C-alpha cells in the first residue's frame, strides 16, 4: 500500500502544480490511500495592480476563484482510482454540509 501512497503523493503534487496551487503554505501527503491536506490553500496569483482594482473587489474575486479551484482540485483527486478519501483541515476554508466556504466568511 505504501508504494501507492508514494505514487499518490507524486500525482497530488502534479495536480497541485498544474492548477497553480501555491505549495509553500500547504502540507499534504497520503497514508493508506487517504490524502491529508493541512495549512493554507491558495493559488499563485497573477499580477494585479492594487490601484487598478479596489481592494474589496479584489479580495472577493480571489476568494471566489480559490473556492472554485479548491472544488476542482478535490474533484480531480477523488477521480484517481488509487485515492480512497481526501481529508482537509485548512486554515482559510472549511467544508460545511458538503460545501466549501471561506473560513470566517
Amino acid at each position, binding site marked *: *500500500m*505504501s*508504494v501507492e*501512497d*508514494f*505514487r499518490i*503523493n*507524486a*500525482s497530488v*503534487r*502534479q495536480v497541485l*502544480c*498544474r492548477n*497553480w496551487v501555491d505549495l509553500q503554505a500547504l*502540507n*499534504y*501527503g*497520503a*497514508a*493508506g490511500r*487517504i*490524502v*491529508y491536506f*493541512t495549512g493554507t490553500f491558495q493559488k*499563485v*496569483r*497573477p*499580477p*494585479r*495592480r*492594487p490601484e487598478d482594482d479596489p481592494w474589496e473587489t479584489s479580495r472577493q474575486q480571489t476568494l471566489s476563484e480559490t473556492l472554485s479551484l479548491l472544488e476542482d482540485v478535490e474533484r480531480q483527486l477523488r477521480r484517481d*482510482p488509487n485515492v*480512497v*478519501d481526501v*481529508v482537509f*483541515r485548512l486554515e482559510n476554508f472549511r467544508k460545511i454540509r458538503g460545501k466549501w466556504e471561506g473560513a470566517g466568511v
Partner: protein
Amino acid sequence: MKDTRTFLSEGQVALLRQDLQAETERHPDWADLQHATGVLHALAGDLDAAGAGFRAALAGNRKYADARWSLCWVELLQGREARPEDPSLEGDVRLGIVRDLVQGNAPDPGLRPGDAATAFALLAVAADRRDDRAAERMRELLRDLDPGLVDVLETAGLAKAGQLDLGRVAELGRPLSLNPGTSVLLERAARIEAMSGDEGEALRLFAVAALVRGSRARFLLHRAELVGRAGDDDEVLQHLQDAVALEPDWHAPHVALGYELSVRGRRDDALGHLEVAARLVPGYADVLYQYALLLHAAQRNEEACERLEAAVRINPGYHAARAALGNVLFEAGRVKESLPHYELLLEEGLESTLLLGRLGYAAHAAGYRDRAEELFLVAIGGDGNRSELLCLYGMFLAETQRVVEARAVWDRALAADPPGALRARIESLRDEAVRGSGDR
C-alpha cells in the same frame, strides 16, 4: 533606476511588495523579511524606502551581512559614500569593486575563488555601461569560476530571445546578485509568468533565481517543473537526472527523481534516491516520511516505523506521516501503539469515514469492542456505501461471532462495486465465513 526594475514587471513588483509589506507589519523583527521588502522597494525605484527596509533588517540582526551589503548598494546608487558600520566589511573587496564601478572607475576585480555572484554583478554593470571589453572579461571570469552558471545564462538567454543575450540576462540579475533570500520571490514571479502562458519569461526568471542561488541544479528542477506541466515525461526525467548528477549532495533533486521513477514503476531505483535524500537531510520530516513509504513498500517495516516516528517527532503536526505511522504499526501487529496516532488525527479534525473504520478495526483488534462498535456506527452513518469500510465492518462483525450480519454487510460492499483486488478479498472473506458457519 530603470535597470533595477527591468527583471520584474511593475505588476509583479506591486503584488510582491503588497504581500511583503503586510508580512513585515506582522513580523517587524524578522530581518530576512525586512531585507526582502527593501529589495522590492528598490525594484520599484523607491531607494529611500529600500534603505529603510535594509536598516530595519540590520536593526533586527546587526550581523546581517547581506542587508549591510544591500544598504551599501543603495547608498552608492544614491550618490552617497557607503560606509558599512561593521569594520570587517570596510576593506571588503566587493565594496571597493562596486564603488569603482558605480563611480565610473575601471574595474579591477581581484575576485575570491567561488565568488561567482560578484562576477555576475560585475558582468551586469559592465553590460549596463555598454563596456564590451569589461563585459567580456567578466564573462571569462565567470566561466572560470563556475562554468555551470554560464550555461544557465546561455540557456535562459537563448530561451528568451532566440539568441544569446548574455548582457541582458546578466543585467536583470544585478540588484539581486548578492541577496540569496530573494530568489524565492523570483521563483514566485516565474510561476506567475508561466501561469500567464509566458514560459520563456518564466524560464528567464527561474534562471536568474538559480544564478542568485549559484545552483544550476535548481534551474533544472524548475525546468522539469515547467516541462512536466506540458506533459513531456521523458524530458522531465532527463532534467532531474542531470540535476542529481550536478548536485548529488542536494536532497531535492533526489526526492523529485524518486517521484518520477516510482510513477514509472521503478520502485527500487526510487528507494535508492530517497535513501540518499534522507541521509543528506536527516532532520527533514517530509523526506523521512516519503522514504518511509518506500521502505514499507519494500517490507522494511521496522526501518519505516523508525523514520515515521522521527518525522512526527520533528513535526508533530505532520498528519500524513502520523497516519502512515498508524498504518505501519497496525500492519506490523503493533495495534495498541497505532491507536493513539489514529485518535490524534480525529482529535485534530481530520475526519474520514474510512479512517474511522480503520480506527474501529484497530480498536477491536486491541480488545476495545465497545469503542470499535461506536466508531463503526459513526463511520457507516457517514458513508454507508464505501466498500472498503464495509469490508472492515464485516470483518469486525464476523470476528465478534455475528456471521449473518457480516455476510449482509459484505453483500452491500460487493454491491458498491469495489475495485478488483478488494472485490476478491471480500468474496474470499464471505466464502470463508460461509464455510466456517456450515451454511452452504
